[in-house]
């Protein structure tokens, strides 16, 4: 009794949202949702894609307004009409899609949100950003203030985004799926920072759908499903299975049913039949630097070759090279013994890592997005004209075949949830049954259902004999799917034994240390 009172007085309710309802057009995004968060805790908001987590937090961050409902901060009711007002109540958000200006330096981005001090005094973004940079240093992050933001790997950009949010003296920080873009090491580092923030008294709200991460870092968790409250509990009083059940089935389910979190199993394949063989492949990055440095690679028919590693170590360049978007500057790349030419020898399907940027034209219709490649196929052309009927029926087939959930496939692709958008990208990469599939973080940001779906499609492609190169920063995904694997670090590949290698060895490889140099310890 005493201790619970003490607990209460130490941690009053910092954020309280009551009866929040929000419609987007005719879609009910949030239905009378309640959310409470104690001061100084790490509170996870769990749910599948489309559960309403981001919508709820956008309301708290002042980015959108609820139809009905009441928000209180530290006990007093507030009216958050804009992010600026939210910031006055010390609420800031770290977005999944960063809000940084790509062409600006780190310092300029950090200074962007700060109020101007003197109208006529000399402006120096570095001086303005110095407090923020000092804060970053306290967290153990040494950011180069002069680096151009777009040139930084995504993990570092996120740090800038976080520091930017912190620099407004926020006492409540909302993180929107922060680990989606991070590697194992970066996730561990982020969690360290989250704990540091917590110990400094900052309230952290973590939008997430990875159960292990919630178990690892959160104090309490609120579960949403399809815009409704499901449950709220202390993390120490629950387990992964319980959370998964809540997330997928809601609260009123037959609890005997075991949720299959990752039921996909690899089957052994014949690895002797090498189809893709490259030696000394060297690929340049956008700034002319050597991104992939003299890599040897060989892949068999019907094999999934996993390439793990921390973002920004040459994955993108190697993937784009194999997908035929980027040329290699040195080395030789052969497919079945003859010159490799992506698209022709072999036929290729590519799942790019950033679907909104590289995979889709979100303003165009779902149909158009599905037909990006088909329109260039002779069978769908009649002279210069397109055979619209045939194309539309192909698109409609793909909508059904790949289970793209939409009321009308002629709506813009932006109307779909992330998972359904990814299904468009997957459908386009796979429907022509290509011999080589290059997939880069194909399940990043997807919920359990969509992830399982993509995995099963990839395994299906393998079983019909496709060779798959799977780039993933999620080592568990590689362990789950790949037949053989390697880790990429500083543009070099090191083979990684999926069965025998230990986690410690993995850490060494990710950190860019070869096994030989690491084994001395």
């Amino acid at each position, binding site marked *: 009794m005493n201790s619970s009172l003490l607990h209460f007085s130490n941690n009053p309710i910092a954020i309280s949202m009551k009866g929040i309802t929000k419609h*987007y*057009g005719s879609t009910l*995004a949030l239905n009378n949702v309640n959310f409470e968060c104690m001061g100084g805790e790490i509170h996870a908001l769990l749910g599948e894609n489309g559960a309403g987590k*981001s*919508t709820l937090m*956008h309301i708290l961050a002042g980015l*959108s307004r609820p139809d009905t409902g009441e928000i209180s901060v530290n006990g007093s009711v507030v009216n958050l009409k804009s992010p600026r007002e939210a910031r006055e109540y010390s609420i800031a958000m770290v977005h999944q899609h960063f809000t940084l200006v790509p062409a600006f330096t780190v310092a300029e981005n950090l200074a962007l949100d700060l109020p101007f001090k003197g109208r006529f005094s000399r402006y120096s973004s570095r001086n303005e950003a110095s407090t923020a940079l000092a804060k970053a240093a306290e967290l153990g992050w040494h950011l180069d203030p002069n680096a151009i933001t777009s040139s930084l790997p995504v993990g570092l950009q996120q740090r800038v985004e976080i520091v930017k949010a912190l620099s407004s003296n926020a006492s409540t920080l909302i993180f929107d799926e922060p680990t989606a873009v991070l590697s194992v090491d970066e996730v561990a580092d982020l969690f360290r920072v989250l704990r540091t923030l917590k110990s400094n008294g900052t309230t952290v709200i973590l939008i997430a759908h990875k159960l292990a991460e919630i178990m690892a870092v959160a104090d309490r968790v609120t579960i949403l499903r399809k815009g409704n409250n499901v449950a709220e509990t202390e993390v120490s009083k629950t387990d992964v299975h319980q959370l998964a059940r809540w997330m997928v089935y809601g609260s009123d389910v037959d609890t005997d049913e075991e949720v299959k979190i990752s039921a996909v199993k690899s089957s052994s394949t014949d690895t002797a039949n090498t189809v893709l063989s490259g030696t000394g492949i060297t690929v340049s990055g956008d700034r002319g630097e050597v991104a992939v440095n003299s890599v040897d690679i060989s892949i068999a028919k019907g094999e999934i070759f996993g390439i793990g590693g921390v973002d920004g170590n040459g994955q993108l360049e190697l993937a784009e090279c194999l*997908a*035929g*978007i980027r040329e290699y500057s040195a080395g030789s790349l052969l497919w079945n013994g003859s010159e490799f030419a992506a*698209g022709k020898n072999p*036929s290729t399907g*590519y799942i*790019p890592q950033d679907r909104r*940027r*590289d*995979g*889709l*034209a*979100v*303003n*165009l*219709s779902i149909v*158009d997005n599905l*037909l*990006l*490649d088909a*329109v*260039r*196929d002779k*069978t769908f*052309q009649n002279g*210069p*004209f*397109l055979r*619209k009927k*045939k194309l*539309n*029926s*192909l698109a*409609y*087939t793909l909508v*059904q*075949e790949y289970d793209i959930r939409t*009321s*009308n*496939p*002629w709506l*813009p692709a*932006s*109307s779909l949830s992330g998972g359904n958008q990814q299904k468009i990208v997957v459908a*386009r990469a796979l*429907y*022509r*049954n290509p011999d080589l599939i290059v997939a880069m973080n194909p399940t990043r940001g997807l919920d359990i259902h969509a992830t399982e779906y993509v995995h099963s499609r990839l395994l299906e492609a393998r079983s019909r004999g496709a060779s798959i190169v799977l780039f993933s920063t999620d080592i568990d995904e590689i362990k789950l799917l790949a037949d053989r694997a390697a880790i990429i670090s500083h543009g070099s590949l090191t083979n990684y034994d999926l069965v025998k290698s230990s986690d410690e060895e993995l850490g060494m490889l990710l950190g860019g240390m070869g096994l030989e140099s690491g084994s001395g310890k």
Partner: protein
Amino acid sequence: MKLAADSPATLPLTPEAKAAEKYNIVKNIVRGIVPLITYPLFSILLMAITLLIFRFNPLKVMPVIWDGAFGGGDIGHINAISETIVKATPLILTGLSIVVAWRAGLFSIGGEGQLLMGALTATAISHLLKWMSSSLVIPLMIVGATAAGALWGGIAGWLRIHRNVQEVISTIMLNYVALYLVGVAVEGPLQEASKNGPYSSLLPNSLLFAHLLPISMTNGIQTRLHGGVLIAVLAVPIIALYLNFTRQGFALKLVGSNIRAANVAHYNVDAIRMRAMLLSGGLCGLAGVVQLMGVSSRLSLEFSPGWGYNAIPVALMGGLTPLGTLLSALFFGALNAGSSNAERMINTPSVIINVVQAVAVMLIVSLRAWKRRASEGNAE
């Protein structure tokens, strides 16, 4: 169901899918029509307000404008409507040019220069090939003018692709280059023999478009409705087909929507953007020769009253679609014809119409921006 390699079997459209497709078509048509009704009504209201501000009585002026555009009073209906169509003709072509560039995500302001280059080239051809039969010179003039406009658009395209010079900037600068080239030409090699003023000599009648309407139909007053009008009207369905039903049109749309996705899907983005600028420029070049052979008959520094620039409001009001552009060009043509009449008859300055046009454009642009912001909010 398994799809066979490279020849996917397709399912027949279910009734729901067909309904969705139909719904989509109807929605697009409604979306196209609504602004074409509301914007003109709105412009008329705006015109009344503008007239009031300048202390003209709208109830007196607007009927005169109406007569100039559609006939009535002393003006025959066919005469007035002919004049409206003549005024709309260059705007149809230059408006289409904006639509094509816009589809590829390019904002070309170079219509004026491209049009002048077309007219200049056609004039030069007519001067150089005086000895040739006019039935050969006419097609050469039309092709030459189109090619010159395409070249002018292509320069901006090349600069954008290879030097990353924004087409907004380069096309404006190229407009001046074209204007001064015309200036040099009409005070130099192309100036008429008597050297009276900065203009070329009149084209011989054999090089002009025929009048479409016989005098007998129009109260004995010759209309200016010329054969070039048919070129402009024909261009509308051709461009509409090209943009909506060909693979090149699809590629333009894709590049205009997301260049990176187009690149990743192995589209040749540079070639597609270049093609858009060439086609866009060609249409303006064509507008230049149509005006030369249909209306002005000679090249001068005052050859164009801004058809290249007015193309932007025309295309915007037309919702950046070919059919919409045709209708909105006709609306602008009617305003022009009507306001000329008002100036002639009751001394109301026709530039008032320019004020109305400018305000209308700002409103349309802000409306579009507002709509886009609203739809982004919904895309959550």
